């Protein structure tokens, strides 16, 4: 048991998350091996995005254990309504401090904070709205973060950034600004930006949902190529086709829990759980 956990790149046990006193993630157990391409499907609002954000420590789990690439984060709050989750408390904070997109880390101890940052360095994430940096060119978007975060110098990061741009087929666009890109191109730049940090795991939140059908292909291809290179990837998606064809594991989530997981064929053709069957049938 212990040995197998060491082999797994990601291992999550009993993950709980609350928002404003609402129980959102209700005990998630999850694991992934190196090289897996995992698709997560499920109804809107079931907690998929929240789960991904917890994996990247953008949301701080309230209880459970997350083990990613050799780093283990553990947290166990006794009360369901913690200070941080108490709705009345939160309202107060809202007024004083509008949410500026920062995880509320101030109350966490230094050790936890260091670990969270270490995990973020190993886990790349692609947001639903990409959040490319609008004041930087495509090349800078990819080459500057490693300089800032890891102190690497330009001579190292620029060639690597160009290499990554070639990989996603955008080397011609490196001097453009994000607002001069199409949706699919922006998506691929965002992937390259995440890859530039040399992550061991890539997370995608509905990477193609906002794209025209003909653009979906070019983004999917990037992910399939990464899969061939052995990158571990977790994708939240509503594109069942892609989930079925590309991934080696499909996970069905409902109401903050993982209901069922298995090989795509198994899930799509032969779901054991009634809830999964029902969800797939209405598609």
């Amino acid at each position: 048991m212990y040995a197998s956990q060491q082999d797994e790149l990601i291992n999550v046990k009993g993950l709980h998350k609350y928002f404003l006193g609402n129980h959102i993630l209700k005990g998630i157990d999850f694991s992934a091996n190196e090289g897996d391409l995992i698709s997560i499907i499920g109804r809107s609002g079931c907690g998929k995005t929240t789960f991904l954000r917890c994996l990247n420590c953008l949301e701080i789990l309230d209880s459970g254990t997350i083990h990613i690439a050799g780093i283990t984060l553990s947290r166990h709050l006794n009360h369901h309504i913690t200070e941080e989750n108490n709705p009345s408390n939160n309202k107060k904070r809202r007024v004083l401090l509008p949410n500026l997109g920062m995880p509320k880390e101030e109350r966490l101890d230094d050790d936890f904070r260091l670990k969270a940052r270490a995990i973020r360095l190993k886990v790349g994430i692609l947001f639903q709205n990409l959040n490319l940096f609008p004041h930087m060119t495509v090349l800078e978007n990819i080459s500057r973060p490693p300089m800032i975060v890891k102190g690497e110098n330009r001579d190292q990061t620029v060639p690597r950034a160009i290499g990554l741009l070639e990989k996603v087929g955008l080397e011609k666009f490196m001097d453009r600004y994000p607002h001069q890109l199409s949706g699919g191109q922006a998506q691929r730049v965002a992937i390259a930006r995440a890859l530039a940090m040399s992550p061991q795991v890539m997370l995608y939140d509905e990477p193609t949902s906002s794209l025209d059908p003909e653009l979906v292909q070019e983004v999917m291809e990037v992910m399939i190529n990464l899969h061939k290179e052995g990158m571990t990837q977790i994708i939240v998606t509503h594109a069942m086709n892609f989930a079925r064809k590309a991934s080696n594991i499909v996970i069905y989530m409902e109401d903050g829990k993982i209901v069922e997981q298995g090989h795509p064929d198994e899930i799509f053709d032969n779901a054991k759980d009634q809830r999964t069957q029902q969800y797939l049938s209405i598609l």
Partner: protein
Amino acid sequence: MYELMNNFINFRSIRRLSYLMIKKFQEYLKKKYTSGLSSILLKLTLIFAILFSIPEISYSQKKPALSWAADAEGNAPFIFKDPTNMNNIGFEVDIAKAIADELFMEALFVQNQWDGLIPGLQIMNYDVAINGIEITPERLSEVNFSTPYYITHVQLVVLKGSKIRCLSDLFGKDVGCLKNSYAERVLLDTAERGPTAIRVKSYEGEVNAFQDMLNGRLDAALVDAPIALYYASWNPEFQLAGEGIGEMSYGVAIRKSDTLLLRNINNALASIGSKGKLKDILMRWNLWNQSMRKYLNDYSESNIPPSEFKKYLKSQGKAKTFSERMQGYYDSLSLFGRAALTTIQISVTSMIIAIILGLVIALIRIYSPPPFSKMATAYIELIRGTPLLIQLYFIYYVLPTTGIKFTPFLAAVIGLGLNYAAYEAENYRAGLFSVPKGQMEAAISLGMKRRQALRFIIIPQALRLVIPPITNDFISLLKDSSLVSVITMVELTKVYMQLSLVDYDFLGNGIIVALVYLLLGLPFVKMAKYAERRFSVDKKRVVQ
């Protein structure tokens, strides 16, 4: 005096330091960026650097200096601008020089707002104040006075043909006077004893009272006799009513602690009095009167002509021809030019303080834990909720009592800088909030620390958003800088007032000063427009 020099030296080293900092910053910018934003910054810092490399006036002189303060925006015959060459002239200028000569010193004039003459004396901005300051018990509790250098009375001035002859004719009438003056006290005392009220209106300057009389708002004005002589006696629309009233003495104001200086100045006054020098000056200004005769015990006849008074009348009496007027404007351009430079120096320096400090305050307000963020909020509210004028007075006149003393320039720049920092902080806050929160998230998810995310991702984007409002603020700062004349800076508005009071040409000089302000603001208006175009958010978001 020592202190004055000391401040000067400090200021000099600060200048040097800021110059070095600018150099460094420029190099850094050149190396780091080539974007449009930084090239604007580059230009700004260049302007700043040029402004500060202007050689400063040297105060070197052989004789020790006796620095004396007065308000050159004041009135004839005390101290005013010679219309022909814009030098400061007046009988007090002559007396100051005579006293200094007597002490083997050099008279060094220091410009100071009249209201601030005694506070300025107490914070050691100069050695003495000589500017028609009446010796009163209240003032004596704050400073020492020399023996009087001039004794005079107050005089009723009425419109030609008015029936008013004396104080008792004033009941039920509207009467103007200078605020906080002997005349005001006389009027209030009379009113108390009278059957019906006197509607006393106090003015910032006697000239305003005369103007209001012409406008029909006043029936009479009670003013110091010299003022009546210089502003009303020759004017066909006015007449002097009755004899002089009461008696008042002007003295040289000296700090309580400077007892030696007090003794020296009294000796000097006694000496110029007995030598006839004082009489000579007063004769030339046509101010020699019965009170002075008695005071100096000098009843001798002398035939010194009232040359200065005649000269003054000549400049007032005849209307200027068009070409004389134009020549006058042309001559005043160098004064305006120098003042414009001061205005720019003050505005640019305080804006740089505001831009940097504002960012720090905004960051503290948004991102620090409550005690600090609350302090930042309190600062912003305090500054925005109180008048700039009061803040300037506070920095210049109150802080020195706690040992913190600035030169007028530093006080002006700190006052305006601290004030505008509060407004800029709010601009930054708006800017920081309008950067989508996903930007911070993206930066954090890439492994950046909060500080790195702020510095490399959030602030650069916010800066673009705040450049247009900040540039607009600079234009209002340019105009607000006129307020620093209250702390003795001679900038554009002050020069405008000084020049206009020489011949009451508020219109002509007003047009010039308005043009200068417009000219100064123009590059920044242009810059604001450019910045708006260049950094407009909507444009950035459009997918092409």
